[in-house]
Structures are given as structure tokens and as C-alpha cells.
């Protein structure tokens, strides 16, 4: 009994960690430029395709190198995103900006089919089906890898935001772009950097998810939705909120699927989201409803 609960809890945390990574990139973009990026999950899909479709299946790159190549690709893509999608619509009303990211999502979902073919790809990943026993509960090593990567990334990110000038410039731009520009920060470049960083985070999430899921064109939208739900739960625009919200959602899903019904899992997860929006739209950590001016 306790083993089952622990197993469900860890599996939920691992899925939640992936949601949190995506939610984090999403929150960074929201804070920096006030755009709700509906394509964030498709960036995860792109990262997964780049790793599985090209780095592993086509080029047979060794573990580690595949991650680096994918991160380089995602960084380039993030830059292209900032230049070709964000910059042209930055002054458009929020609705239009949302639809523009939906347009990007449509482009990506169909482009990956053109590039990597319509068949879903599968990848065993470096760890395969290895399981580890923790207090009698068996858990996939991949899940532990996911949790470890999340912790490591969060520590690195905290360090970057606190102690490096580029991290401080990112935070300043996110808090008040106008004031940051007056202080001599090149906000356009910093904004591009935020897009690059958010894309790379999504790429890491894709790399982590690929061994668990089939890599397919529609995996992205699902991940997007879970990330939104995490943000709403934790509080929109809050970085700790995105983390806690993601982990919470993962655990709610895995326990709900086991104890209530696996068929109704989405209904439960998004019912929670819907109720949160109606009862407490600011979530756990958030401020009252924010809107792009």
C-alpha cells in the first residue's frame, strides 16, 4: 500500500517535473514580453524530434552529444522565434499575439511531419527500461533522471538569475522593460536571450520525455495544456508557482488515474484547472489577474 503510494508519488513528481520545465519556459516568456506562448509544448515536441529523429536515429550520435546538438538547434530556433514571430507581433493586442503563437504551433506540427515523417518515433533513451528500487517501490530510472535534471537546472537557473549580470538583466527586463532600458540594458537582446533559454528548457523537456512517450506531432499540444494548468495552479507569472504547480499537477494526475479512474484523468486534471480559475484565478502564489497593458 505504502509502496504503491510512493511509486505513484514519484512517477507523478517525474511527470510533474517535465510539466514544470515547460511551465517555467512559458512563465519566463510571459514575464518578459507578456505573450501567452501556446507553442511552448510544440517546442518540447521539436526538441524530442530533433533528438530522436535526427541525433539518434539518423546520425547515431552518442549520449550527451545528442543533447548538446539538440540544445544548439533549440537555441537557434529560439532566436528565430524571437526574430520572426515575437518581434513582428510585439505591438499587436494580446488576442492576436496568442493566435500568432497558435499559428506557429500549426507550422511546427505540420513541419515535423514533413521533415521526420508521419510515423511516431520511439526511443529507448540511454536508460532503457531500467528500474530502481526505492524503499521497495520500483520506479523507472528515467523518472529519477528527470527529477535530478530538474533540481540541477533549477539550481543553475537560480545561480544565473542571482549572480550573473546576464541573469540580472533578464530579471530586470522581465520586471520592467522600460526601466531596464533606461538603466542601459539592451532589452531587445535580453528578450531574444529569454526566448533562447525558454526554447532550450523546452528542448530538455523533450529529451527527457522522448523515452517515456512516443514522439509524435500531437505530443506538443498536450504538454502545452499541462504546462498552462501548472501555471494556473501555481499562480500565473510566478516562477516558484510554475514549479510547484507542475509537480502538484503531476501527482494529482498519477494518483487520480490510479485511485479514481484513468479514463477520466483529463477530466479530473482540467476540472481542477477550471475550478481554480473560477474560485481563485491567482492560483497558489500568484498576484491578482494580470493583463497585458
Amino acid at each position: 500500500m505504502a509502496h504503491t503510494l510512493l511509486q505513484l508519488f514519484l512517477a507523478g513528481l517525474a511527470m510533474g517535473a517535465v510539466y514544470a520545465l515547460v511551465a517555467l519556459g512559458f512563465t519566463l516568456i510571459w514575464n518578459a514580453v507578456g505573450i501567452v506562448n501556446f507553442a511552448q509544448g510544440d517546442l518540447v515536441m521539436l526538441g524530442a524530434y530533433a533528438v530522436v529523429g535526427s541525433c539518434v536515429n539518423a546520425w547515431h550520435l552518442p549520449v550527451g552529444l545528442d543533447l548538446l546538438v539538440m540544445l544548439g538547434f533549440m537555441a537557434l530556433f529560439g532566436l528565430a522565434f524571437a526574430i520572426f514571430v515575437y518581434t513582428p507581433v510585439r505591438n499587436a493586442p494580446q488576442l492576436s499575439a496568442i493566435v500568432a503563437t497558435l499559428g506557429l504551433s500549426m507550422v511546427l506540427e505540420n513541419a515535423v511531419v514533413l521533415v521526420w515523417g508521419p510515423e511516431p518515433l520511439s526511443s529507448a533513451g540511454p536508460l532503457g527500461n531500467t528500474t530502481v528500487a526505492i524503499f521497495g517501490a520500483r520506479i523507472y530510472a528515467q523518472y529519477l533522471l528527470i527529477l535530478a535534471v530538474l533540481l540541477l537546472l533549477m539550481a543553475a537557473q537560480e545561480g544565473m538569475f542571482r549572480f550573473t549580470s546576464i541573469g540580472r538583466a533578464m530579471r530586470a527586463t522581465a520586471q520592467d522593460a522600460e526601466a531596464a532600458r533606461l538603466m542601459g540594458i539592451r532589452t531587445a537582446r535580453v528578450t531574444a536571450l529569454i526566448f533562447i533559454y525558454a526554447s532550450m528548457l523546452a528542448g530538455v523537456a523533450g529529451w527527457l520525455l522522448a523515452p517515456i512517450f512516443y514522439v509524435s506531432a500531437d505530443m506538443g499540444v498536450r504538454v502545452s495544456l499541462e504546462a498552462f494548468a501548472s501555471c494556473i495552479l501555481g499562480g500565473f507569472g510566478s516562477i516558484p508557482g510554475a514549479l510547484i504547480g507542475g509537480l502538484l499537477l503531476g501527482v494529482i494526475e498519477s494518483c487520480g488515474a490510479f485511485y479514481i479512474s484513468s479514463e477520466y484523468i483529463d477530466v479530473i486534471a482540467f476540472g481542477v484547472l477550471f475550478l481554480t480559475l473560477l474560485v481563485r484565478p491567482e492560483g497558489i502564489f500568484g498576484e491578482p489577474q494580470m493583463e497585458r497593458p
Partner: protein
Amino acid sequence: MEHARLWGRLAATVVLAAVLAAALPLLVEPYYIHVVDVTLINLVIAIGLNLVLGFGGQISFAQSAFFGIGAYTFGSLEAAGWPAVAAAPAAVLLTSCVGAALGWPALRLRGHYLALATLAFSLIMGELMVDLDMITGGANGMMNIHGIGLARDDAAMLPILLGVAAVGLAGSMIFAASPAGLRARAFRDNAIAAQAAGVNIRALKIGLFVASAAYAGVGGVCYCALLGYISPDVFAWQTTFAYLAMVVVGGLGNNLGPPLGAALYTLVPEWLRFLQEAYFVIFGSVVIVVIAVVPGGMAGLVGWLFGRIGRAIVHSPPGGRPAPEARR
């Protein structure tokens, strides 16, 4: 003046629908008649979305759910022995009630909060259509819906759907020209100012949701009547994006928008079938370009072009006139 223009537009809509009903069966192959039928259903649903999104400025992702609720209600009532004349209005009525039931709690939410709440609603409804298999037939959907006895008879459905779409478009035109339409645009452009000027924004917002749901409900009934079967994947939340893209590319808050958007999204891919996925890569890019370059959408572009041609014929002005301020 304004009334004369409205009457002109209404007359043009009716004439165009009549001409299409008479000419299309002679001009195009039977398969394309079917595509036109589907386009018309999409058009009706897009008009509904344009009311809440284009005129009211409220981001709603609930359109696919309303579409599905209309279709499933109609299918279930028919299966329970209701005649189509009773089942169709009942389905539209129920869908409208769901619209009100969603619009009321959504009063508190704005912007992307509203977008995500309605998206969650669509997702839950889409899942329930699969999970509640006692009522909905699960993943298999519903087969052999009698409808109005014209299922799969594309040629016979064409004039009916043209009529429905024309009435729907006329409704939207009358709304746009009416005081209610003016209030909706005031609310879209500045909610606080509109409220200060005496607009009941609560009633307005719920009303817009009810109207958009009613149009989607009509679309659902028409879809049942045209195909004779329904399956849940048609009403999955992803389809909401399709309607959103239609309305935005067509032109938000412009009555020319939904017809242009529905045609570009449904009709044109049939002719460009050889492009396959590449078409939607292009379409997605067009969405971004439209937002960045012509925020008024295709309708804004067409209006601007016709304005230019008209002026050039009547009196050629010295130098070009810049494009009019794009409307959101």
C-alpha cells in the same frame, strides 16, 4: 445611410446564396459540393466565434465543445425518437443554455485567463464525449442519424446549408449594425469606458457567449444532418484552433471575415491537396504574417483593395491613400 448599406449587404448575401445554390451543382463535381457543404458548416460556426471574439473581444476556445454539444444533443434526441423539427431547435436551445452556463462564471475572467478556462472546458467536453459511452457511443460516435433524411445527399443539402449560412450571416450583419453591436465593440475596445457609459457588460458578455454557442449548435445540427454520423474526434478541442484561425485570417470583427476564413481553411486545401502538410505550414505562417502585417485580415485587405479600386474609378486622387487603420 447606415440602414441603406445594411439592406444592400443583406440583399447581396441573399442573392449570392441563391446564385451559388443554382450555379454550383452545374459547375463543380459532386465531391466538391460536399466540400462546399462542409465549408458552409464551418462558416456558421466561425460566424458565432466572430461574434464573441471579433465583436466582443473575448477569447473563447469553447467553440468546438459547443459544436459537439449541438451535434450530440441532436443525435441523442433523434435516437430517442424525437422528430427532426423538434430535435433541432431543442439541440440549439440546449447548446445556448450551456453557453450561458459557461458565460456566467466566465464573467470574472479576462484575457488569457478566459482563454485557458474555455480551453479547459473544451478539453473536458471532448473527453466526456469519448468517456460517457452510454450516451455518446464513445470513440465510435453515433451512426445512422436520420437527420432530415438527406444524410450524404450533398446536392440536396447544399441549398439548405446555403440558406442557413445566409441567415446566420444576415444575423451577424444586423447585430453589427444594431445598438447591441455598437455596445459590444465599445466593450471590446475599452470595457471600463463602456461600463461607465452605461453598457451592461455582464449581460453583454453572457449574451455573446450564448450567441456563439447557438451558432455552433446550429453547426452541430447541420453536421449531423449532412453526414448522418458523428465521431468525437471532430469535436476535440484542437478543432477550436481551426475556427480561431479562420476568424483571425478572415478578419476579426468583420462580417466578410468568416466567409473568407472558412473558404481559405476548408475549400482551398482541397484544391491544394498535393501540398498536404505543407499547406498548413503555409497557413500557419499566413496566420502570423496576417497578424503582423494586416491585422484586419483578408476582409480588411479586400475592403481596402475595393476601396482603392472604387476611388480610382470615381476620382483618381493624387498619390495613394494609406491603408485605413486596421481594426482589431
